[in-house]
Structure formats: structure tokens, C-alpha cells
């Protein structure tokens, strides 16, 4: 059984296969699996708008029945049921072939994979501050769609590198490509967790931390600039959040000197880290990125159905 617990579960060739299926879907070639009688459980213990909706729409489009919940409120979790028992209920009792899980605990997708074994395919839709592999897939797809390639690019990541599961999965995904350089722009306290730096070093990827004071130089270099909000919900110390919030804000003026084909990505929701005037510029790729969420999830589910139930 193939799962998507970490973006490291997919090789470059497999990522490209998903992208190929995504292209097909966008061109109107969407497969239908009604006759297989597949079911998907969407277990969102943590709130989500885009990810849950795009998964639900994608499964339905493919003829796969969906069930589940959008938050723990009103479920037996509130009565003390474990998440392990919850997933086993959806797999063993309700017959789900897919489980899409989001939770604030790190590692919950891998835990579910271990619990259900080969009985269902687990897709990680975000596990705490750890990983968000489907977001990384749609981000890379958007980069490839707009730049025509991923190899050879200079990619900047700005904001909360410590707590952004989106950045963690993106960095691991980029290890599959021949990236020119990765530029990390963040407060000292929000640098990458050790594992991700270790993986960058072990892969021999060229990367560096840049200070916001070097902004005028680095904005000229980047082909892709990824921005995230500082995630208040990941801070255990409110004072630490207050110290860094608002310190990394992109204004229209701050893009002076940027390459014409620079693309700015953001996983949304945003707070105030991107000036609304940027929305109207060709740099703003985040609307396309959000739209691609649906298409890439179609491509991914098709790929997983073919691998597991084909």
C-alpha cells in the first residue's frame, strides 16, 4: 500500500507522474472510479478550509464517496476517544479505503499508517508543525506551471521556518530537483528545525540564511519567493509571537528590483504579510496556487488509486 505521509515518500519520477495526471485533469481527462466502490474518510481534527474542501471536491469528482468531520467538536474525541480508535472505526467499520488526516500533533499520519497497515491509504493533510506534503506538491506544480521548470531556480522562503509544515515539505520536495540556491529569510528564533537543515546538508543543496537587512540584494536574485504568516497557534510563548509578528511584511515597494518573472507563493490564509496591492501584479501566484490545490489533489488521488487499487 502506498501512502503519502511525508513528501519523502515520493521520488522525483513519481512527483512528475502526479503532475502528468494533474495536467491531464486540467485538460478534461478525469478518471472515474465509481465502479470500484471506494470510500474516503476526511478526518480533520484541526480546522481547514482549502485543503479539506479541495480533497472533498476531488474525491467526489473521481467518483469516490466521502465521509468524516471538519473539526473534533461534536465527535467522540470530545468524550475521550483516541485518534487511533477513530481511524480504526473509519477503516475497519466504515470501510474507508482512503484516510485524509489533519491534526495538531506531529506524526499522526505515520501513526495512522502504522495502525491501519495495508487496509487503507493514508494521506497527510498537515500534522502539527511537521509536514504538509500535498501542499508541497501543489506548490511545486505551480512553480513548474509558471516557470516551465523547477531545476535551476533560486527559491526564497520567508517567515516562520521553524513552525511552517508547508516550508518543511517544500524543502524536502526540492531535494529531488537541481535547485540553484535556497534562500531562507526569517527571524533568528524561527530558523529551520535541525532535521531539515541536516537533510539540506546531506543532499549537498546550496542554501543560506539571509537577513532582512540584505533584502535589496536578495530580491534581485529570486525566481520564487514563498511567504507564510507567522503562525500564532504554534507559539507556546505569546511574548515570543509578539516579538516577531509583523516583522516580515512584503510591500509593493519592497519588490523594486525583482525579476520580471518572479512568482510569489503563499499557502493562505494570510494576515498582513502581503500588501494587498501585490494581488494585482503578475508576481502574485497564490490565487493560481490555491486553484491548483484541487487539480493536484485530483492527480494525486488518481495516482494513489492506480498504485493501490488499479
Amino acid at each position: 500500500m502506498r501512502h503519502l505521509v511525508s513528501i519523502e515518500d515520493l521520488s522525483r519520477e513519481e512527483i512528475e507522474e502526479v503532475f502528468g495526471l494533474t495536467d491531464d485533469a486540467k485538460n478534461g481527462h478525469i478518471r472515474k472510479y465509481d465502479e470500484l466502490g471506494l470510500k474516503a474518510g476526511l478526518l480533520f481534527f484541526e480546522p481547514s478550509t482549502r485543503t479539506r474542501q479541495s480533497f472533498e471536491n476531488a474525491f467526489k469528482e473521481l467518483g469516490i464517496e466521502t465521509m468524516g468531520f471538519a473539526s473534533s467538536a461534536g465527535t467522540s474525541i470530545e468524550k475521550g476517544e483516541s485518534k487511533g480508535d477513530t481511524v480504526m472505526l473509519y477503516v475497519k467499520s466504515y470501510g474507508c479505503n482512503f484516510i485524509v488526516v489533519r491534526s495538531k500533533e506531529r506524526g499522526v499520519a505515520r501513526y495512522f499508517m502504522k495502525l491501519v497497515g495495508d487496509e487503507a491509504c493514508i494521506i497527510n493533510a498537515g500534522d502539527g508543525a511537521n509536514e504538509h506534503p500535498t501542499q508541497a506538491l501543489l506548490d511545486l506544480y505551480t512553480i513548474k506551471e509558471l516557470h516551465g521548470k523547477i531545476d535551476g531556480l533560486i527559491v526564497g522562503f520567508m517567515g516562520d521556518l521553524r513552525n511552517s509544515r508547508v516550508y518543511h515539505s517544500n524543502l524536502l520536495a526540492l531535494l529531488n530537483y537541481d535547485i540553484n540556491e535556497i534562500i531562507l529569510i526569517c527571524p533568528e528564533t524561527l530558523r529551520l528545525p535541525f532535521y531539515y537543515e541536516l537533510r539540506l546538508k546531506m543532499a549537498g543543496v546550496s542554501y543560506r540564511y539571509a537577513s532582512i537587512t540584505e533584502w535589496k540584494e536578495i530580491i534581485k536574485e529570486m525566481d520564487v519567493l514563498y511567504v507564510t504568516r507567522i503562525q500564532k497557534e504554534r507559539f507556546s510563548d505569546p511574548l515570543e509571537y509578539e516579538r516577531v509578528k509583523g516583522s516580515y511584511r512584503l510591500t509593493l515597494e519592497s519588490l523594486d528590483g525583482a525579476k520580471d518573472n518572479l512568482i510569489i507563493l503563499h499557502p493562505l490564509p494570510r494576515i498582513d504579510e502581503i500588501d494587498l496591492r501585490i494581488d494585482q501584479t503578475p508576481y502574485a501566484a497564490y490565487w493560481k496556487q490555491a486553484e491548483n490545490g484541487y487539480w493536484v489533489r485530483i492527480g494525486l488521488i488518481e495516482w494513489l488509486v492506480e498504485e493501490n487499487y488499479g
Partner: protein
Amino acid sequence: MDNRRLIVSKIKDGIVIDHLPPGRGMIVLAALQKYSENSGFDLYSKRIVLLINTDSTQYIKKDILKSEGLTELPPDVEVVIALLRPHDPPTVNIIKNYEVVKKYKPQLPKSFSTYFLKCPHPNCITNDVREQKHFGVHVHREFEVIEYEKEIYLRCPFCNTIITLDEIQKLIG
């Protein structure tokens, strides 16, 4: 007879773990105790000796653990021994009829599951109180061994937390 020397008699059948880092023998004893609780092997019904801070020509000081009755070491305990000094592990001697029949240094596997070590990250699912009933039954804690520039790290594959060698020794202590 030299009464300044501590004399420990030989064991007939069992295991001698030599060249343990000084003061760390208690960790191996605790690991063996944990193993005996889970396996039914009655560790304390036989002779067991732990020498702490004894002289060593190679390491200046070392610990030695002798346990009668064991015929081999369980993999979980071998991992604990290897983690005490991964680049130069302590020596395990298997004794049969007073003779050393096998001598080896336990090596770290690429990955292992264990009940001796817990991920130190408080938000890791493996530490979630509500989920504990599944651990050790349906799911096991696992660690991946990563070696980079001669340093050994453990990675919790559930949450990607990296544990350095210094941390490992505190966590299994």
C-alpha cells in the same frame, strides 16, 4: 592473596558486557530488567554482577556487567549498548561452560523500534497520553540512525525530531 583487589568469580553460562563507559552500566542493567519484565526471563534468579568504575588499560575506567543464564542478548538491549558509544561499542562476550564462545561489538542498525527510548518532542503523537494504549501493541516507537560528518543522530520518523548523541544518553539513562 592480594586483598586490595576485588575478585569476581567467573560465570559458567551467560553474558559478560565489557568496556562499558564508566557509570553507564546501570543503563544496561535497567535495559536487561525491562527485557526480563517483558520476556519472562527471570534476571534476578541468577547471579548478576555490575562493576562500576573499574580500571581499564584502554579506557582508564570502565563498567563491566556479568549476567548468568542469558544465552544471547535481545536486539533492544544491543541497541542500548551500541548507543552508549556508537563509534567504538562495548564488547559482548557469550560464555558457555566458562569459555568465551562468541565475542562481538553490537552495531547500530539503520533503524530500530524500542521501548527504551521516547521521542523528546512533547507534541509528537508518540507522547500523546490518549494514544498510549496503542503503543507497544499496534504501533511501536521507532528511530532512524543518521550519520553525518562522523556524528550520530537519531531521528523520530513520526515527527522528524533529531536527537543528538548527548541527548540520547540522557533519554535512555
